[in-house]
């Protein structure tokens, strides 16, 4: 592990020392920092929590929140909850898969976008909904999807230039 990563890890894990509960909060802290769980970080967590790396991996792979691969710059989460389902969430997802040319669970090769589905984001009154990073968009139709992503692409271009 690089000294830089070790230093970052220490900053993340030190506040948890002495707590009764370490493993899951540590995984959450690392994922929040890096966007995913690098292998070296999981080994370090195991050392701090006093368990073997495969126990750490076993826990990480059990919970839907954790990923072991990086996400895109724009992370798109499409709600597939019940309220969204009866209001057409499946077709919204298909439209996004077409617009971004990736399937749910994948990341575009340029790491620009990643796409995942979630069971419910809890904004059911706005169904069907999706989230792009922290921004929630609701009451969507398939017609909105193309517009939404071309707007995001334009914003990206302006912020890049």
């Amino acid at each position, binding site marked *: 592990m690089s000294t830089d990563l070790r230093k970052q890890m220490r900053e993340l894990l030190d506040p948890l020392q002495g707590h009764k509960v370490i493993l899951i909060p540590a995984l959450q802290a690392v994922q929040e920092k890096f966007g995913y769980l690098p292998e070296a970080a999981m080994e370090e967590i195991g050392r701090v929590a006093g368990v073997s790396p495969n126990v750490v991996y076993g826990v990480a792979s*059990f919970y*839907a*929140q954790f990923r072991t691969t990086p996400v895109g710059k724009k992370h798109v989460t499409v709600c597939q*909850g019940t*309220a969204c389902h009866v209001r057409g969430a499946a077709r919204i997802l298909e439209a996004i898969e077409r617009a971004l040319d990736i399937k749910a669970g994948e990341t575009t090769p340029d790491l620009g976008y990643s796409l995942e589905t979630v069971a419910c984001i809890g904004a059911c009154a706005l169904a069907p909904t999706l989230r792009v990073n922290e921004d929630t968009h609701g009451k969507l139709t398939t017609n909105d999807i193309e517009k939404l992503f071309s707007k995001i692409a334009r914003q990206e271009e302006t912020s890049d230039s």
Partner: protein
Amino acid sequence: MEAKLNGEYTILVCQGTGCVSSKSDRITQALENHIKQSGLSKNVHVKLTGCHGFCQQGPIVIVEPEGIFYTQVKEEDVAEIVQSHIVDRKYVERLFYHNPVTDEVIPLYKDIPFYSRQHRLILRNCGHINPEQIDDYLATGGYAALKKAISEMEHTQIIEEINRSGLRGRGGAGFPTGKKWDEAHKAKEQPKYVVCNADEGDPGAFMDRSVLEADPHSVIEGMAIAGYAIGTSEGYIYVRAEYPLAVKRLRIAIAQAKERKLLGKNIMGSGFNFDIEIMQGAGAFVCGEGSALMYSIEGKRGMPRVRPPRSVAAGLWGKPTSLNNVKTYASVPLIINRGADWYRSIGTEGSKGTAVFALTGKIANSGLIEVPMGATLREVVFDIGGGVQEGKKFKAVQTGGPSGGCLPESALDLTIDFESLTKAGSMMGSGGMVVMDTDTCMVDLARFFLNFCCNESCGKCVPCREGLPLMIDIMHKITRGEGDLHDIDHLLDLGETVTKSALCGLGTTAPNPVLSSIRYFRDEWEAHVIDKKCPALVCKALINFYVLPDKCAGCGICLRACPVEAISGGKRLVHVIDQEKCIKCATCLEKCPERFSAIAKVTGEQIAVPKEPVPIGTP
């Protein structure tokens, strides 16, 4: 309309997750700026609140003292609200609530049927107080129950009061809360734990989240009372990491309560210590099950274990643990303050108090509602919910989340309580209530729920791990039009086996949506297997799209929009959909201008159309 002359105004802006999604945080900011610029800061106060429950109409802004209810407010409307309502004393009528059912325009919060027919106990403070200010909660009489419990009551007296109130667990199972506390109190081992289950994983449910976001102190107070009653100083709240706002407000509330000596060491000088730690769940539905939740707090994989021992005997770290839902804890201060007799007077014989539901789906008024136990489903769906959206026809209501059941119109007069819903093949659950209209396919919906439970199965026991995928395979076969009548019997058989033999609540209830759907909507299942039709026009393999030759204007919009180039045509030519290429995405149907309405969606029939594009008007 003229407003009364009144010096002081408070503008309440909803900052629940629903309204924040519609940018209500920017409204608060804009209001504060405008009021400052207009020199009104002395007399006009802006207050953020938690969820009002009427998320459909969000962002919601209420102006006190009149109680004017503004709906779907945008940042651009702020200037007008300040100038017109506050300065010129003329209400902004265009932002009033418009009842979609009766076409009425209603200016006052208290007159809106969505609210006036509710009985809000658990949601008593939601939308009225600032959840980030403990003084707001104290001003409503908050923490008086904790004070009363600690200074005037014995442990056993508190438990007896909760017992007598008839309070049952609001997480869904309905276990008597007093009995659970009593067993935890009597357990000899130390330390003991009080745990709050806020792992609200049901898709389509946001009751617990709203309570935590809007009134976190009510839950903290309830937990502290529970801690005192069973004799422990350690509490945990297990809350979904997907609820960042709830976590933030809980943190603020716990810190403020500690500052005021309402939590922590030596609470109110009584010598009683109680502290709460927040543990964020990591996205596993099965962790809503008690033993799995506790393993998850311990940092393990959240896999349920065989019971007994129950968690009151051996729970968190193997110690006696009292686990209750958010809404159960929020009910406790009310019962201590107002007494068990008062609480008993609300509800039915077996189910006391109120029930909170997240009312969603194809309903006119989506949102969070609370009714006394014993209200009927019809009252909730039609009187409060305003019935089905856009004049469509009601088909079913689903309660109990993915493990609940779908009830048809004939069940609408059922009373809402733990027993009657279970008897009808559904369940109370934590409080999701999803309304379906005739555009929802009951086979597809049952498959959706089963798929959810199957994905969330931890894989420990065979019936759930192997049984659910087998059921899904059969349902795939049926929705593809390849099923027969035996498949329905086979599903019933498998479903019963899983129900009887799975290890935990997730498995034993997972077949419910399928079993109840077949029980109440057998016609629709038979249409899929016998006629190979999907009456709701949902199952892709059983539907087809056609361009109607007598209506097509040859405009080319559908042709350009089709993502798979399945449509051929040209200027002034009748367009044709290649049925082999068509992926049934319905883009053509949505894009075809309404004045033409040339796309037909059908099931079980073929429409005679030309094979190749032909000039418009060709007979």
